[in-house]
């Protein structure tokens, strides 16, 4: 009798984590400063993902705790430490900014937790600093500008002027386009970035125009993108210096550009791994429900955040809530067995997605809103250029 009871209790105790585990996810993004517009979009997508999942992965409750990095690496590291040590989360996800992610990574990985980037893809993390517990639901920074470099080649652009902010991702973007662009890069500017970023680009635009380049490639995420497009428009460069952008014209900047009537941007091109018009069931549901719930198109940041939560949920469900077996969790993440809004993809050895990159064109939709549509496939199943430097096999 006693033995049976002990066995029962033991079974019950073992069963507890498996039946009703609470899985905690820390989500670090920017919720203050001008960049909060990105963070809020990601937060909305996380909440939509939880709605769609019913707040559960299998039988296990998913709890998300948000952290605000205030657009600064030191603050990002602090909130990451808080999530890991005080809240004892199982996963830390999010991270818009490469420099914030690089500053925070050790706090998560040294504690044996899983780190999921929903945006930043610094080259170091894809190469030498890659880690078995780090996964990305976005891309490596170089890839999107590499795709843009390829597009520029196809369009016969011979010379290019490049502008980007002076931080880890800005440098990766420049490196990316230099990798594939066959013409000459006649000039480049790296401008001040961070909470006191430079937003007046008069000097740089004057230089770009004087350089006589065939095209201007810029990378200005968040609020800086809108400011840049405005000044490009005011400088009257549309017909002289055609604009190509990466991560600058998106669902966050377009409504404001539309409100300000800056139609220079219509017909301009950008590259990306995702677009609201990508035709798959998960994406149709995501875009429709996001629009219904929040009244705007989701941005690519939102798409990646939505994927991050779904990836985590798929892994939690696969291991039935048992977070103690790290190898099993890792294998489940590696399988990427969930309905990604970009369509199915696989993970490379460095845990960055092997995925398609598309050309997107800025268009006016049926309701008169400015958005983007897929204008072509640039790369199919593209691998990032750093995975061979990663010691993981």
């Amino acid at each position: 009798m006693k033995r049976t009871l002990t066995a029962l209790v033991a079974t019950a105790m073992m069963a507890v984590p498996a039946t009703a585990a609470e899985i905690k996810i820390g989500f670090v993004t920017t919720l203050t400063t001008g960049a909060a517009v990105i963070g809020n979009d990601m937060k909305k997508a996380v909440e939509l993902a939880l709605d769609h999942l019913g707040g559960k992965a299998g039988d296990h409750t998913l709890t998300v705790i948000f952290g605000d990095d205030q657009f600064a690496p030191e603050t990002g590291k602090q909130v990451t430490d808080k999530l890991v040590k005080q809240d004892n989360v199982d996963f830390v996800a999010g991270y818009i900014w490469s420099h914030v992610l690089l500053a925070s990574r050790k706090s998560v990985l040294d504690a044996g937790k899983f780190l999921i980037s929903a945006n930043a893809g610094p080259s170091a993390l894809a190469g030498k600093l890659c880690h078995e517990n780090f996964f990305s639901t976005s891309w490596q920074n170089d890839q999107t500008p590499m795709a843009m470099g390829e597009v520029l080649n196809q369009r016969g652009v011979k010379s290019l002027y490049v502008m980007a902010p002076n931080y880890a991702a800005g440098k990766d973007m420049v490196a990316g386009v230099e990798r594939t662009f066959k013409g000459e890069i006649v000039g480049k500017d790296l401008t001040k970035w961070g909470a006191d970023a430079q937003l007046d680009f008069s000097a740089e635009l004057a230089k770009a125009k004087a350089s006589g380049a065939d095209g201007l490639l810029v990378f200005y995420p968040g609020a800086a993108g809108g400011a840049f497009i405005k000044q490009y428009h005011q400088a009257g460069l549309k017909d002289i210096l055609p604009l190509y952008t990466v991560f600058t014209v998106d669902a966050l900047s377009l409504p404001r550009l539309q409100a300000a009537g800056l139609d220079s941007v219509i017909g301009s091109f950008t590259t990306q791994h995702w677009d609201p018009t990508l035709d798959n069931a998960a994406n149709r549901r995501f875009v429709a429900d996001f629009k219904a719930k929040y009244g705007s198109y989701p941005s690519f940041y939102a798409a990646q955040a939505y994927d991050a939560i779904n990836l985590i949920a798929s892994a939690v469900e696969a291991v039935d809530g048992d977070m103690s077996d790290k190898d099993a969790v890792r294998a489940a993440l590696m399988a990427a067995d969930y309905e990604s809004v970009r369509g199915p993809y696989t993970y490379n050895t460095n845990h960055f997605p092997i995925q398609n990159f598309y050309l997107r064109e800025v268009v006016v939709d049926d309701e008169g809103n400015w958005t983007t549509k897929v204008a072509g496939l640039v790369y199919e199943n593209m691998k990032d250029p750093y995975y061979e430097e990663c010691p993981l096999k």
Partner: protein
Amino acid sequence: MDTALFVIQLLNGLQLGLLLFLVASGLTLIFGILDFVNLAHGALYMLGAFICATLTMWTGSFVLSVILSLPVVGAIGFAIERLVARSLYTRDHLDQVLATFGLILVLDTLAHLIWGPEGMAIPLPAWLDGQIAVTETLVIPTYRLLIIATGLATAGGLFWLVNYTRLGMLIRAGASNRTMVAALGINIQLLFSLVFALGAVLAGLAGMLVAPITEASIGMGNNIIITAFVVIIVGGIGSMKGAFIAALMIGLIDTLGRSFLDDIFKLFMSTAAAETSAPAVSAMLIYIIMAAVLAVRPQGLFPPKVR
């Protein structure tokens, strides 16, 4: 280096310098006369931008909105002086810094609550949205010229106000010897409120002028306030003339540094090294200037005559 590009960059530097002057002149007035360190001066710059953006959405006219916004920002400055600044005049500067830093957080959060985090764009009327071609290669956006003209006109107006009006005389007298002015029966409280409101109007105007370029955004003032402090330290705290010259100097140095430093560096180092170091050095350039001025002339280049 071609001449047209150099001229355009000079104009860009002049434009930045004049915007800096609008912010720094208010800061230096308030510091010089009220002996009050107002870190929240940048928040007034931000409020100017947001109020003007909102009015532009309502009225549809940018110019009208600027004219309507100026008294509103002035009134906010007046209220801040009455409610917050006044009780801090007798405290030491550290208390003022703490209190006005708190005010920044309050005003930033207030702006966040009212206007949301995404900021606001201001559409420009068609006549300001184009460019003026001086020669074939020398093309300048019309709006940048408007900023330069407005900045120069305001600087001229301020010069006239300070040097040739009764209010200006009181301001100068107050800057030199506050107690004596009060002893002569001048309502110093009212003078202080007016100076504070004037400073707010100047900062607000700068915010309104910059918003069509960079958009109105939360924390935009914290960005410029540091540079404005550099300006008044270089120019000599409390000196209007110093603020003007230092603002133009900082504006030109910053713009020309961003434009030509990489080319200059390429003369004596490898292209790769120049491309890496030039952005870093140009971001530091104005602080290097400030450090140099502090080392050689701690009182600034044009300190006011009597304190």
